[in-house]
């Protein structure tokens, strides 16, 4: 209990004094996870909507793959992205390994199937004839997709929250592709692992609490937007 209390006190101290290193790590974590979530929203949201509306052979298999992807272990993603970006790997020439871009890439791989799977369900849960109703009102295909997304905005917002939650909290991929380099690729989760490994539990608890607070704040903001639009 004393250890936890020490951690809380340390976290308050770090936040109160605006410790430059902690602030840097926090802002960096937020930045990479938001960018990865946005990229996943475009890729996963697009794929989910497309899978919900398209009809082609192999669609069910693809949906099964997406659903499987929703539970991808970050460490496995980290391993494959590392191999991909390794100097002698297929994308080694880009020189991205151990850079923030590598973390964004890995986190995008993690969040894309999460957002795709939830988006797919969100669109499929709309009345089946709504798509035809929109077309019969005179919509183009693009207008139809936008209107469907508008109707499914609450679960789509849920998809964004799930995607963000998945990447801000993962450690396996970030540590493998980022390398936890101080001032460059260190995020809250990798810093927490490192501090705990060194036996600095108070610092580890402080970083964990900051991570929790950050996750809560972002999700509270998204929940506010989501519930503001809830049908009454």
């Amino acid at each position, binding site marked *: 209990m004393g250890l936890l209390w020490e951690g809380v006190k340390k976290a308050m101290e770090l936040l109160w004094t605006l410790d430059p290193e902690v602030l840097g790590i926090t802002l960096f974590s937020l930045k990479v996870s938001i960018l990865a979530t946005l990229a996943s929203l475009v890729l996963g949201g697009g794929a989910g909507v497309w899978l919900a509306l398209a009809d082609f052979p192999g669609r069910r298999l693809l949906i099964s793959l997406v659903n499987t992807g929703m539970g991808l272990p970050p460490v496995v993603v980290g391993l494959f992205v590392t191999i991909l970006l390794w100097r002698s790997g297929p994308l080694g020439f880009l020189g991205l390994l151990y850079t923030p871009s590598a973390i964004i890439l890995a986190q995008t791989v993690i969040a894309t199937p999460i957002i795709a799977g939830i988006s797919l369900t969100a669109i499929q849960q709309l*009345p089946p*004839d*709504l798509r*035809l*109703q*929109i*077309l*019969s*009102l*005179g*919509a*183009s295909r693009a*207008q139809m997709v936008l*209107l469907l997304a*508008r*109707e499914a905005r609450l679960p789509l917002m849920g998809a964004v929250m799930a995607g963000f939650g998945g990447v801000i909290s993962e450690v396996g991929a970030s540590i493998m592709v980022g390398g936890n380099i101080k001032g460059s690729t260190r995020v809250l989760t990798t810093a927490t692992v490192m501090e705990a490994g060194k036996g600095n539990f108070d610092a580890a608890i402080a970083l964990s609490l900051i991570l929790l607070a950050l996750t809560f704040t972002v999700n509270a903001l998204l929940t506010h937007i989501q519930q503001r639009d809830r*049908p*009454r």
Partner: protein
Amino acid sequence: MTAEPSALEARDLAVYRGGVQVLAIPRLEVTAGSVLALIGPNGSGKTTLLKTLAALLPFREGGLWFQGRPLDTRADLEAYRRRVTMVFQEPLLFDGPVRMNLEAGLKLRGLPAAVRQARVQEVARRFGITGLLDRQARKLSGGEAQRTSLARAFALEPEILFLDEPFSALDPPTREALMDDLALALRQTRTTTVLATHDQAEALRLADTLAVMHLGRVVQSGTGIEVVNRPADAFVAGFVGMETVLQGRVTASAGGLFRVAVGGREVEAVGGPSSGTEVLVGVRPENVTLAAPPGSGSSARNSFPCTVTRIVPKGPYFKVELDCGFFLAAFVTPGALEELALAPGRALVASFKATAAHLITGR
């Protein structure tokens, strides 16, 4: 007098689902300004045909002609879709105020704000929803939501309106009121309409012509009176409520009347089939009168002693099923039920005129 031009024509239309043909329409024409009702039981293909005619479902074979011009390309079909619209069984309103819903199609079609506002006011007045314009669509009752859905369609001033069982989810009083408003709107705007329904009363009330569907095909089309009184085959006869369909061999035929042997009796009917041919004869239950033995002295050509086998309530009437050597059904009022002391096993005399027995030509 010139014939009304064709608003829409389907030729050799074939729709497949999962490799199975679900629709085969050699020819179907919708006259401009008229209301055509597609009637048939669930699964007969009404909705599929309606969606295909509205260019919302692809078809593998055949084509559509809009105002005499073929809709050959995808661009043709998309342009056509912007000139027609469809109302579904479910209101399918958007999450937002009623006003936003009424404006939705107008916005999608790129109409200016002033036109949109004028149209919204007009259709809201027409369908009695002016007071609901600022209400959230999801808070509407079933009747209000379907009113809004119909108003949204009329706001577009479509050249063809497709209606897919728009009243089926409503309670009877709401349905009556909305049907009255729709009938008036259709009469005043003379909007070419195709209505799919399984309710023949609804079809007879709103439509100029009926097309009866069965297993993805149109099995009979004509005016309501034609279809109801002269069904083309046993299926249509059953669907339009011709409860009694008798099969027998013609024993005599002369002067526009013929006699047909059924269950050891002879029924006289109007028509001229040759002697010896196997025919079907249909009798509507409301054309059969019942009397206590020895009979009411009816002038009807067909008068048979019968026994009541079953009595089934049918809304404000009772259907009395009779064994006359053949099956016969009659509708009676609750008053007649009491007066004749009708009950299973009761002996009666059933009568119907020769003109009430219709020759059914198809099988």
